């Protein structure tokens, strides 16, 4: 494929091969290949309807999607064979584009339940509310957030920015190895965007990989990716370094789409 950068993928944390995915009989992903190593930050960019969010959701195990062909291997495991909760316990995390409101459950109760499910999987003792509070405060401080939303029901009445910050706070507490951010920048003003980006940067580590799904380049001004992929019409049509994001910002997506149609 023209313009594709050759990369070493031998010890990938997440390797996606020939992934084809349909929803309600409609094929959205038409053969996606992707390899992400621990410590790397990959960005997936693409126009609306290209399949970006589908990729994010299918990796997290959303039941509405059907895998038609292909594979996804995470940490040597067949990711697609795992239930959503098993993926989460194995260290996969999806920051939702549209975080869901959960009535009657406080954020801190929700997060403690989630953390304890993960700890149980790892054979660690469950945390009681007091121990959890300590972990929480430490993580909140690490990402420069505040815990004002912890005693409110999950996402209920949260502003757009609060919802996204809450996703990142969950990321910080659950400490996944593979974090997928689905349009975390959408609906954020510039200050909220900076806050979220700062938090993500604090969480970058050699053990952790990020897959950042975004329509716009602007988030990538603050979170510098190692690799940028362009997804169009269900396929990755171009892969490059951070400069590719700037090129997309300048030229838009049409030139790529035209290129696909020509080839």
């Amino acid at each position, binding site marked *: 494929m023209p313009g594709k950068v050759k990369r070493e993928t031998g010890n990938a944390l997440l390797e996606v091969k020939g992934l084809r995915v349909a929803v309600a009989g409609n094929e959205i992903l038409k053969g996606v290949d992707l390899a992400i190593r621990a410590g790397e930050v990959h960005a997936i960019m693409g126009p609306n309807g290209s399949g970006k969010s589908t990729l994010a959701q299918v990796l*997290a*195990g*959303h*039941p509405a999607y059907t895998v038609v062909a292909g594979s996804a291997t995470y940490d040597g495991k067949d990711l697609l064979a795992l*239930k*959503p*909760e098993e*993926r*989460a*316990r194995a260290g996969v*995390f*999806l920051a*939702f584009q549209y*975080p*869901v*409101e*959960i*009535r*009657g*459950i406080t954020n801190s109760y*929700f997060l403690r*339940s*989630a953390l304890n*499910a*993960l700890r149980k*999987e790892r054979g660690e003792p469950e945390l009681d509310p007091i121990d959890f509070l300590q972990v929480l405060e430490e993580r909140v401080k690490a990402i420069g957030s505040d815990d004002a939303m912890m005693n409110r*029901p999950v996402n209920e009445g949260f502003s757009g920015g609060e919802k996204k910050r809450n996703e990142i706070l*969950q990321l910080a507490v*659950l400490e996944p190895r593979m974090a997928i951010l689905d349009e975390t920048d959408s609906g954020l003003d510039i200050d909220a965007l900076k806050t979220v980006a700062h938090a993500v940067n604090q969480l970058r580590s050699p053990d952790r990989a990020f897959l950042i799904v975004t329509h716009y380049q602007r988030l990538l001004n603050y979170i510098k990716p190692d690799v940028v992929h362009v997804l169009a019409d269900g396929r990755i049509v171009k892969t490059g370094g951070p400069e590719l994001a700037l090129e997309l910002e300048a030229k838009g997506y049409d030139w790529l789409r035209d290129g696909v149609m020509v080839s």
Partner: protein
Amino acid sequence: MAVKTGSVERLVGSYQAWAANGASRVPAWLKDLREGGIRRFVELGFPNLKQEAWRFTSVAPIAETQFELAHPASRIPHLEEIQPFLVGEAGDRLVFVDGFFAPALSTSLPGGVRVASLAQALRENPETIQHHLCKYAKTDERPFCALNTAFVAEGAFVHVPAKLRVAEPIQLLFLTTTDRQVVVHPRNLVVVDREARASIVETYAALAENVYWTNAVTEIVVGDGARVDYHRVQRESNRAFHVAATQSHQGQGSTLNLHFVAFGSALARHDIGAVLAGPGGTLILNGLYLLAGAQHADHHTTIDHAADHCQSHEYFNGVLDGHSRGVFTGRIIVRPGAQKTDSKQTNNNLLLSADAHADSQPQLEIYADDVKCTHGSTVGPLDPRALFYLRSRGVGENEARRLLTYGFAAEILGRVEVAPLRVQLDRIVRDRVAQP
């Protein structure tokens, strides 16, 4: 379904025998009240499905069961036996066993608040009772309220004088212990005078899973500027019948927070009426029904905005499992002149099984033009998006279902300010939700 008239006659016969017996030495006004009640009941008869207010709830199982008037229990339970139903020990407490006052289990603390059994209060303060009793809970269209009025004799009487703040919640416990098929007609009167403040917990419970019928009426009078937190917990035997009317009447600038929780009974019908009679009143109506098996619970609420600048917020959640049925009717009346009314009503029903059923019907009658009234209701299963959200965080599917179901109930219980009560209710919900 036609209800046999024989059952009405049977109740009238039981009334006549009762009235002729121990109930003869009563003041004339009370006698008139009772006579009026039984007359009204005979006129109305048992309701049937053809009546609008009863079209989802058949009371045939009540009409067809032969109930006897309860006798004083041969054994009064020990304090430990009633402990699970209590919310702390610090406040005043009235306990009734099979409809009869149990002084050994009750506590009345010295202080300005008057907490007594209705029978005792009728002897000692008949004026206050006469002034309020049956003035609010209308019997015109309510046959069961009429029947309760016919048998007015015992129940709880609470009187909080003006400006007094009662620190601890006052508990009213109605316990059924007998294994006989009895009917009890508790009649409660709560009067909170001007600028006073009180918290009250009224609980209906049983020591065993027997068949019996509770037909209760509670009248709550909230004076100008007073604040009352009223909690009503219905955790009757799962084979019992529970019919009740709760009627409140609020003065100017008063606040009434009503919390209704229904867990028990095979068949329950609760008519809740609230009148905002003075300007600037605030009413919160917070309700939860948690049903399983073949349980049926019907809540009929009527909020009457009779004065201007009042607000009422009503939140009722239903959690329905098995082949249970929940009925909610939320009527809001805004009278002419009740300008700047702010009224909000929501009723959300969670169906945990394909055989569970919920009926939700808002009824808005607005006769003023400068008002804000909103209502919304939902009936449906657990939100699949929320389920996926929880699972994507590592919470297993069954646990996620339990958590969401619990949250649905906790949303309502979280508003209960009496901590020991909130803990008690929370535990019941957790136990119920934990069952597969």
